[in-house]
């Protein structure tokens, strides 16, 4: 019996029908009212407003002044700094998505077996989920300090991690990977717990070693988890802001000017709210496309 059949039989059961009065008809909507009021004011309306603003030139207070059609988008697509920002964003997202995944995979593989201290290790690996990106960024400002920071002390170098265009993107990526490692650990660990023990047992009987088991049993078994996790990493990396604001302010030059930071710059330094709105819509479309890719993949993978 498929899932939809079981749903049908459940709802088809004879149910007691009470004749509905006026109150009973409106009651469900009363339950929904508080949540939908908030959604309407702070999600649906601003979403429409962002689309609207993206087609206007605005004044310094963000009021729509001159209808500009797709002008804001055209100007963005024609500007090299927009494409630089897109390029930086994709580099950042790629480094963080894979870096976070590898960090989470390593830490969860290190804690699959039972040994003294495994509880402490697991808690430590999950811990970054609780830390604010702003607080972590401030801690990393000290770690990355050019003369007195931990990283330069340990390496014996004097690298200006945040100010050197060759290192700035790498530095904010490292901070973001550290922040993302916790959620990657949690999801990948849960995936690993779902791999049936019998698979490992029969492989052991066949004499397969650790690496052989890792590559031919573990990784294929958790590939749906890894795929899901990479999508989560990509979406949250696209939304990164605090690290950029607190470590590099998009610089040096445009070296770390990712899309969300560019939105912030447009709106609050240049007061170009129309352009900021157009960038917001572009960000929305990118995230939407990635989400749809994930949905279509999940639909197909249900049958495996």
């Amino acid at each position, binding site marked *: 019996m498929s899932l939809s059949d079981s749903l049908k039989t459940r709802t088809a059961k004879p149910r007691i029908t009470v004749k509905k009065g006026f109150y009973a008809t409106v009651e469900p909507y009363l339950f929904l009212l508080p949540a939908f009021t908030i959604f309407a004011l702070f999600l649906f309306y601003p979403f429409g407003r962002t689309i609207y603003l993206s087609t206007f030139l605005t004044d310094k207070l963000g009021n729509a002044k001159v209808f500009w059609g797709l002008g804001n988008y055209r100007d963005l697509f024609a500007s090299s700094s927009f494409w630089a920002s897109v390029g930086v964003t994709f580099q950042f997202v790629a480094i963080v998505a894979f870096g976070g995944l590898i960090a989470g995979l390593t830490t969860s593989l290190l804690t699959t077996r039972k040994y*003294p201290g495994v509880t402490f290790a697991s808690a430590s690996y999950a811990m970054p989920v609780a830390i*604010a990106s702003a607080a972590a960024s401030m801690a990393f400002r000290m*770690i990355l300090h050019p003369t007195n920071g931990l990283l330069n002390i340990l390496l014996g170098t004097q690298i200006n991690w945040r100010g050197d265009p060759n290192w700035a993107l790498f530095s904010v990526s490292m901070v973001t990977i550290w922040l993302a490692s916790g959620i990657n650990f949690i999801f990948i660990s849960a995936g690993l717990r779902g791999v049936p023990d019998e698979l490992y047992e029969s492989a052991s009987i066949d004499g397969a070693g650790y690496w052989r088991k890792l590559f031919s049993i573990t990784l294929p078994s958790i590939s749906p988890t890894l795929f899901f996790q990479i999508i989560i990493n990509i979406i949250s990396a696209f939304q990164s802001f605090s690290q950029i604001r607190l470590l590099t302010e998009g610089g040096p030059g445009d070296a770390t000017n990712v899309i969300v930071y560019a939105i912030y710059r447009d709106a609050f330094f240049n007061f170009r709210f129309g352009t900021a709105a157009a960038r917001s819509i572009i960000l929305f479309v990118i995230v939407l496309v990635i989400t749809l890719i994930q949905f279509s993949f999940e639909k197909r993978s249900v049958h495996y």
Partner: protein
Amino acid sequence: MTSLAARKNLAKLGNMLLNIPMLLVILAPLIYTLMISVMPPDEIYQNVLIPSTINFGNYVKAFTHPAYNFLTFIRNSFIVSTSVMLGQMITCSLAAFAFAFLDFKGKKLLFILVLATMMVPGEATIIANYLTVSRWGWLDSFQALIIPYLTSAMGIFLMRQNYLTFSRELHEAAQLDGCNNPRFMASIVVPLSRPALGALGAYVFLNTWNQYMWPLLVTNSSSYRTVQIGISMLYDIDAESLGLMMAGVVIVIVPSLSIFIFMQKQLINGLMAGAVKG
């Protein structure tokens, strides 16, 4: 047979040892921050890693010096995080109740609408929201920090999933006994949903406590600033006080870590439901 046992123990030991470098990498930022925060200032500039004496001067200064206002930031963050947490528990439970127990026109469409909001990144609407609250004269106020976050699709989804595990007969029996929906919810559904509410509460409180971009945009005066804005502003006040800055980081991390340590299970349940949004 002893050789097999010995090999197993050796494997355990090896596994433990392999964890040490990874643990150092993950814990280093916290340990280092703590060290710098209690280090005598001259040792910071001598690139010492472990302080020779422990000095809590930075903490005293952060709490008592009027320029830093840490007590105000902490109070503000507690007010905002608690309000958002309670608000979401209420609005999400109510909406989820309708979606799980009641039949009405447009139910499917409205639920899809809720799920669709998960696809809009908050950063994409933040400019328009900023313009709205500033037009309403809400800049520098608690309502600007609290009201926009009083509901979430993730919360509605989490609570609905939980309610769907209740049998429908329970609701029907209650109705036959003349128990109306608000009473049914308050006396049966909510008490039975404590674990899910705990997960939602821990997750929402932590997320709000850790929020940065929105409070940065809507607050200008230190009387409404939250902790994350407070520590990041320390640089603007005194860029030379590295130790004080790290004390600030420790102070704002302690509540986050406490929630993580004492409510780990609830938090992880909330996170797993919320990660869909990213």
